[in-house]
Each structure stands twice: as C-alpha cells, then as structure tokens.
C-alpha cells in the first residue's frame, strides 16, 4: 500500500503538483474572502477592531514577509555571507521599536490610518497630506515589487506567460481586498502565513537533515557535515569561499559603519511602514497590540532564523555541485534554470569545466541569487511535491504583502483624502464605495507597474525603508513621547527627511544628477543609499526639534490627546468576529 502510494506520488510531475497546490491555496483564499466580507468602513479599514492577538500576529507576519523575504533573502545572504545580517537584524529589530514605542499608543489613539494620527496629533491637514503622500510613495514602490514576484513565480513554475501571471495575481488580490477590505485581508493572511511557513520550512528541514543530520536548520548550520569528515559546515564554507577568491563567508566585506547604518535604517524603516503599523489598529485592546507584536515577531523569526541556514546550505551545495565539474555532467536542474536565464555559463577557457571564482575575467558562471530558494529543493533532490510547495509559498508571500499595501493605498485615498480633506460630509456608505473603488484603482496601478517595472524597482528596498525611516518614524515617536512637539516642527522634519532621502537616492543610486552613478568614495560618511535612511531620520529629529523651539506650543486639546494615548485603558469599541 505504502509502496503504491509513493509510486503514485512520484509519478506526478512538478508541474502537476504546482497546479494542484497553487489551485488549492487560491481556492482557500477566495473562500475566506467570501466568508469575511466587510459591511462598514470600520470593518474595511481595521477589520472592525476585534481581531485576536494571535490572528493579528499571523496576519502581520504574512503581511510583512514579502516575495523578497521568501524568495530573495536567503539568496542575498548566500552571496553576502555575514553582511546578510543587515537584513536579518534590520527586518526583525524594528518590531522591538514597534512594540515598545509605537503600536500600543497608536492602538489607543484608535483611528484608521497613519495619516489619521499625523493629521490629528499635529492638528493640521497639511501634515495629513504630507503623510498621505509619504504613505502612497512608500506603498506604491513596495507593491510593484510584489506584483513582479507573482509574475516571476507564475512564469517559472507554471510556465505561464509573465504578464498573464501578474494579471491572475491581480484578480485574486482584487477579489479579497475589494470584497473584504482589512477583514478579508486579515483572515486570508492568516491562511497565507500557514502556507508560506510550511513551504519554507519543509525544504529547509530536509536539506539540514541531508547535509548535517540535524533536523533543526538553525542548529544544523552550526553542526559538522554528515559526510564523516568531521568538519563544521561553516568552516568548510569559509574554506571553499576563500579558495575561490570570494570573501570569507562568516566575515563579509561591507564596512562597519555601513553595516551599522543599513541595519538602523531597516529597523527604523520597518517600524515606520504604514502597512505594518495599521495592522495594530485592528486588535481589541492596547495590551493585545503589545502581545500581537510579540507573536508577529516570533512567527517572523521562525522564517528569518532559518533563512541564513538555508543560505549556507545552498551556497555549499552549489559550489560543491558545479565548481570545477565538467559542464557535460551537470544535473538536470542546472539545464532547466539555464533556460530561464537564472544561471548562465560561458566556457571562457574552453576546458569544458565550470570555473566559478570571484575574479570576473576568469569566472564562467553567473548565478541569479533568487535561485537559492527557488531551485534549492531540486538541487537537494527533494520530492516533486516539495518543489511545488515553494511556488505556492512564494505566491502566498507576494499576495499577502500586496494586499496589505493595497489597503493602505485605498484607505489613504478614500479616508485620508476624500473623507478628511475634500468631502468631509460623505456618508458612511459613500465612503465604503470610495474605499472599494480606490482598491480597484490601486490594483490596476500595481498591476501596471508589475507588467512594466520602472527602473526604480531595483532600488525599492533603499527607497521604501529609507522614506519610512526619514518621515513617519520620527513624526510618530515625537508625537507620542514629546508632548511639546508642534505641527511646524513635525512638518519641517518630515519634509526635510523625505527630500534629503530622495536626493541621496537619486544621486547615488540612480546617478541622475551626474553623468554616471558617483563612486562609493563620495558617499557621506561612507554610508550607502541603503543605509542613508538612518542619517535622514536623525536629520528629521534635529530639524523638528529645532523648528519647534522657535514656534509656539501645540494647543491644549492636543496635549490632552497625548496624555490620553499614554494610558492604555478605554481603547474604544470593537466589533466581535
């Protein structure tokens, strides 16, 4: 019986498995969307405010972990070694800031969006509009990358045309975001977390067992190799890397100050991203906001602590499989991924062997870093269903993040702009229709960017996190912890922060201000555009406090708002689910 079953399982190809798993997961998301339709603006924007800490934690984790975390991160670490820690620490450490400095107070404040807080706390529609523009800029840059992720997964695993893939993804997101708003998104994200974490962990555990005999990847990559040599995996990898001319894996090559600055910019940016912050408006009480930040981080760290293990396994595997091996004997996966252009080989010295070294004039192999997760199960010769699982997981990661971002975009338009600025008299029903229409509009724009990716998508990390760090984080923290902070200071700080961040990216990342991208030696304090968010944030703080000193104190009722949000009790009504 067992034999027959395993025979059947093996006879089903990767392609069929992928259709089955992706199909089942999509049906699940649609089912949840129909079950959790939104009937009021409160349900549409913040799921009625009655989400349990565990559900919110899972939804936050799925919201947070994007196509970049799922597909890209392990690959980046694989090639960056120690330097990859900037993403690991940066994208998790921000949750400590969120839990301690932002989430509980924003929940107590109890409105729907980040611009809501900025607009009310700084008693100014100007401040609100600046915040809306920041939210839109950050979210659109970010969402374009997600739609691209959807297209990539579809085209590589299902051999569907890239554009068709993006359009299928658009329809799925459209369906549950428009129908269910935050409520629909929350519960699909809970399901998406389960899919993506399962899809990430299964291959990781298999590979850890194979290479080190330890089923826990986090321990496995600090263990001895199971080939009987008695060598630790990381020592072996350090040795292989230096042999081929690469930097020692556990040491890295970025300067200390840049590692410091990038980590800080990513942490602060994480805490300032509107689609993450808004998730904490959805829980019932202030104490639930704190708790669900902890749960979210725990669930995120399960994946994030596995990624560096996967990175080390994949890197070792890759080098051992290809380095100095005859091209004629390469395994099947090599050929398959060669067709997609993710791996390319040119036999420069015509010896028929694959020379893989750092020196670019001699190196013959170019490997796209995404392959480290996408092809990992095949490289490790895992069963077909595991290979297919990665596709379903990648889609879950991309769709859940896209949906969260689309909600921020649609609520910025319908709530912050239409309701709060242009047409305050709009009815509840009218606002809900406006919210749904803006969600449709946002999906179309996102899809357009997914199909025609603008040049700046490559710089998306630097831009989105840098802008969030440079604008929202200081304005919100000062708004809570500094009662005297006034609108003049906050607006000046945000404007200066964003402008200098944009200028730095345009100059040093895009090279639009000079004929070419300026040399690294011209970076301020040796800090890369990715890390500049930390400097822009500090400037925001300095400008805000200086301007405040020369302008008048905020009015009495605003100081009362601040005193009120510092006390956790009476956080407003919630709609039971």
């Amino acid at each position, binding site marked *: 019986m067992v034999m027959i079953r395993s025979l059947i399982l093996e006879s089903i190809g990767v392609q069929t498995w992928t259709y089955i798993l992706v199909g089942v997961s999509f049906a699940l998301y649609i089912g949840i969307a129909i079950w959790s339709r939104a009937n009021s603006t409160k349900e549409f924007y913040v799921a009625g405010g009655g989400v349990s800490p565990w559900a919110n934690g899972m939804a936050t984790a799925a919201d947070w972990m994007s196509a970049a975390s799922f597909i890209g991160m392990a690959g980046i*670490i694989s090639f960056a070694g120690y330097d990859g820690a900037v993403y*690991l620490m940066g994208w998790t450490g921000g949750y400590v800031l969120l839990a301690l*400095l932002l989430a509980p107070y924003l929940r107590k404040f109890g409105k729907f969006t980040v611009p809501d807080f900025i607009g009310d706390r700084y008693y100014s529609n100007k401040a609100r509009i600046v915040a809306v523009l920041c939210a839109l800029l950050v979210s659109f840059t970010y969402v374009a990358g997600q739609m691209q992720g959807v297209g990539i997964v579809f085209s590589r695993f299902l051999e569907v045309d890239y554009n068709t893939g993006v359009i299928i993804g658009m329809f799925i997101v459209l369906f549950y975001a428009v129908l269910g708003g935050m409520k629909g998104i929350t519960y699909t994200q809970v399901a998406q977390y389960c899919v993506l974490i399962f899809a990430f962990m299964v291959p990781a555990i298999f590979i850890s067992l194979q290479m080190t005999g330890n089923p826990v990847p986090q321990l496995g990559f600090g*263990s001895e190799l199971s080939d009987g040599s008695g060598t630790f995996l990381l020592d072996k990898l350090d040795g292989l890397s230096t042999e081929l001319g690469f930097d020692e894996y556990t*040491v890295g090559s970025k300067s200390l100050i840049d590692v*410091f600055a990038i980590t800080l910019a990513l942490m602060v940016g994480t805490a300032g991203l509107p689609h993450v912050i808004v998730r904490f408006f959805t829980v019932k009480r202030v104490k639930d906001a704190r708790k669900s930040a902890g749960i979210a981080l725990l669930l995120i760290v399960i994946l994030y602590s596995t990624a560096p293990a996967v990175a080390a396994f994949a890197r070792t595997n890759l080098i051992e499989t290809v380095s100095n091996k005859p091209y004629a004997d390469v395994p099947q996966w090599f050929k398959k991924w060669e067709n997609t252009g993710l791996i390319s080989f040119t036999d420069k010295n015509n010896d028929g062997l694959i020379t893989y070294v750092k020196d670019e004039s001699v190196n013959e192999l170019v490997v796209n870093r995404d392959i480290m997760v996408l092809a990992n199960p095949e490289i490790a010769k895992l069963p077909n269903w595991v290979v297919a699982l990665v596709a379903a997981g990648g889609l879950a990661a991309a769709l859940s993040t896209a949906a969260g971002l689309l909600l921020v975009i649609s609520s910025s338009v319908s709530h912050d702009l239409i309701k709060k600025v242009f047409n305050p008299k709009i009815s509840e029903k009218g606002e809900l229709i406006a919210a749904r229409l803006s969600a449709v509009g946002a999906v179309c724009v996102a899809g357009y960017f997914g199909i025609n990716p603008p040049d700046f998508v490559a710089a998306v990390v630097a831009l989105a996190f840098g802008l969030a760090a440079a604008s929202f984080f200081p304005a919100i923290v000062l708004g809570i912890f500094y009662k005297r902070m006034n609108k003049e200071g906050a607006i000046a700080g945000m404007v200066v922060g964003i402008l200098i961040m944009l200028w730095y990216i345009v100059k040093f990342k895009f090279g639009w201000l000079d004929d070419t991208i300026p040399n690294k030696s011209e970076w301020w304090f040796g800090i890369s555009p990715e890390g500049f968010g930390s400097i822009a944030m500090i400037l925001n703080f300095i400008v805000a406090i200086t301007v405040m000193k020369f302008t008048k104190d905020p009015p009495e009722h605003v100081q009362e708002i601040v005193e009120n949000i510092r006390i956790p009790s009476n956080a407003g009504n919630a709609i039971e689910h």
Partner: protein
Amino acid sequence: MTNKEKAKAYWKENIRYVLILLTIWFLVSYGAGILFKTELNTIKIAGFKLGFWFAQQGSMYVFVILIFVYVHLMNKLDKKYGYDS
C-alpha cells in the same frame, strides 16, 4: 494620588522599562553583532563564531524575548495602576 499624578507615575515607570529593554536591544544587535563581532568571533561555540552567530541568529532570538518581557512587565504595571480594564 490624583489622576494626573497617577498617569505621570505610570508613564515614568513605562519609560524606565523601555530604556532598559532598548539598551539590551542595542547591545545584542549593534554591539555583539556589529561593533564587537571581530572580538567575539575568536570565541567559537560548535560551528558558530560567536559574533557571526549574534548577527545571524542570537540577536533575533533576544528581540523576541524582549517584546514578551515588555508585554509581561506592562501587564503587571497596568494592573498596579488599575489601567487594565
């Protein structure tokens, strides 16, 4: 204690917790994982150099613990001041 004094005392204790926890947050990530990683890398536990381990594993575990410690401390503090309704 008047309501205002109570709120002030609560806020002061909260700030103290936040400062202590953020100091630890800074020490494990920016300290052990970045500034002192070279020194810590001379210490090895199983296959891990310690500085590398803090940067790619340890700091993340500490982050999770820090949030749950804060949750616990604040729940107690809310009770103490009667803000736990």
